[in-house]
């Protein structure tokens, strides 16, 4: 059974509070990175400029280590919005690799490259309902960073540039995401 949202929130707060107390007890210590080889997941608010439209939505991803400083990842994002009276939706599904750079006291910057696709749907509801859909293929390059709050939790911000090809030609769409990342204990 899926736990209610408030239990997840309590868990998150307890985890962060516990980490803060530990940090106060050891003021010189930096938030210990949990085992860097353990998998992580993230969930974020995401903004996508798709064509001329500004879309908002969510981005979830998961990654695991496959070489030192390298992680494999999968990413799924869903965005929606309206433009010129038409409702637009876009789903991006990507997989690729993430390169971790030397971490700072709290910061863990990274760069990533992914390949995949995007499915967009445009719906106009007037006296009749019209729907047009399109699937594009391509990839994304991006940069981001984690700001570690605790051994397991971090704030993650990232920017990607989606390069997609369809029968209509090439599109280049920027995407910005801000959310939380959780690294599982080993």
């Amino acid at each position, binding site marked *: 059974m899926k736990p209610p949202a408030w239990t997840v929130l309590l868990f998150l707060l307890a985890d962060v509070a516990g980490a803060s107390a530990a940090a106060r007890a050891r003021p010189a210590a930096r938030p210990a990175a949990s085992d860097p080889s353990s998998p992580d997941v993230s969930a974020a608010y995401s903004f996508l400029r798709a064509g001329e439209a500004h879309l908002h939505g969510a981005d979830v991803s998961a990654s695991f280590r496959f070489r030192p400083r390298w992680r494999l990842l999968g990413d799924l994002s869903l965005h929606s919005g309206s433009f010129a009276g038409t409702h637009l939706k876009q789903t991006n599904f990507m997989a690729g690799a993430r390169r971790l750079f030397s971490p700072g006291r709290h910061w863990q910057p990274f760069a990533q490259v992914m390949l995949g696709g995007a499915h967009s749907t*445009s719906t106009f509801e007037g006296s009749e309902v019209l729907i047009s859909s399109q699937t594009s293929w391509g990839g994304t390059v991006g940069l981001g960073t984690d700001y570690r709050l605790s051994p397991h939790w971090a704030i993650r911000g990232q920017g990607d540039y989606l390069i997609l090809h369809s029968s209509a030609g090439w599109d280049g769409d920027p995407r910005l995401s801000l959310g939380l990342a959780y690294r599982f204990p080993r």
Partner: protein
Amino acid sequence: MLRCGGGSNPASPSGSGVKLQGVVLQNATGNASSASVSARSATAGKIVVTVQENSSLSVTVSGNGTFEIQNLPAGGFTLIFSVNGVVVGQITITAVSEGTTIKIVVKLSDKDVELVDLETDDDNGQGGDQPKTCMINGGTAGSNIELEGNVASGDSSQFKMRVNGNRAGDLVDVAASGASYKCNGDKGTVDCKANLKVGVKVHVRGNLTACSTSAASVTATQVMIQKD
């Protein structure tokens, strides 16, 4: 949005003039009932929209069908739609004042282009906040106008039409006794005129002689009967 494939020129050095935001629905299909829909993936290729009055104003439509053109001439303009370099149709928009943002929805097939919806958003305070006086979006009494829709009643000399999308609040009266008729791109003939029946799709070009919030009358100069 950056178009990687070239041809795009959404230039807007001064930010003045008329701005157009549009969505192209490619090979979209639908149903008159809002509860029922059907969809079709696009098969069309690269779509380019060019302004007839200034061919340097040209944009490539993005993968999700959105496009934007700025610095359009006030008064009116004609948009030419081409797919893979082949012109498939055009749409003329009239009675546009400076500073207006126009939002259009266009349905594009392999053979023609159809204006589904048009809304205006006047940024210069000359209309956006004022009460609406004409039931046709983008319509001004005494100005030229183009409408697309279906014949609801009447005959080739006088009929009522239901305008596509949300552009008009009610049926529009069309006086067409003096209009030239064209059928599917052919030259008008008496036989073509006879094809005007209830339910057929028409493109009407003419003058909006009167318009209120509840009624509108157009004196047509040309009636094009579209292929189903």
